[in-house]
């Protein structure tokens, strides 16, 4: 699946997007965040306050409990500040 990152999540990870192949035990958005945190300092910094991070699956907002199966694109970003 493709992962895309925005704002300070993008800056801390140091990437705009990447292709992820998580193991089968990664079922939910929360699981994926936990798995990503183990990938290095940038990820740890991006997700240190995991509860504050927003996620979208295929361009729709989802909660962290949502299953990721079948999604083509997952996005992680901070709370939004548009308008």
């Amino acid at each position: 699946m493709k992962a895309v990152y925005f704002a300070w999540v993008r800056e801390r990870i140091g990437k705009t997007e990447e292709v992820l192949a998580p193991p089968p035990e990664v079922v939910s958005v929360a699981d994926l965040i936990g798995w990503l945190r183990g990938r290095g300092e940038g990820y740890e910094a991006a997700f240190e306050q995991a509860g504050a991070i927003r996620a979208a699956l295929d361009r729709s907002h989802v909660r962290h409990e949502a299953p990721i199966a079948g999604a083509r694109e997952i996005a992680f970003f901070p709370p939004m500040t548009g308008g």
Partner: protein
Amino acid sequence: MTHPGVRVQAEGFDVAAESAALTAGRSDIGAVVAFTGLCRDEDGTLAALEIEHYPGMAEEEVGRVAAEAERRWPLAGLRVVHRFGRIRPGEPIVCVVTASRHRQAAFEAASFLMDFMKTRAPFWKKEHRTDGTSRDWVEAKASDDAATERWAG
């Protein structure tokens, strides 16, 4: 879902033209409300805002909010334009124009659209300071979440 009245763009916009487009050729509209959000200079400390967005989702999410506004109020039309990229103090960032038969629907729908856009549309503002020292991401405000929650139910 994209909505025909929604645009996300780097260029500026003309709110009068957006309003005129909603009312052209119609005589059933009794009220038009136009809101414009501008970039403030924060007492001279802000040089520019840099607005990042999630291409695709930004249009779709604003479209979903627009469709919800149309479900809740009897609107004759609406326009939402949200900019991205570098924006200087004094320049417009966003506009919402709503048209309806009577004013209450247009007022309420415009307010609803702005409240939901602030908390649901994937845009992020970064501040560039005039002293060049800091470039910080704007933090989301609890007051914006509270403003959105008042529309619940």
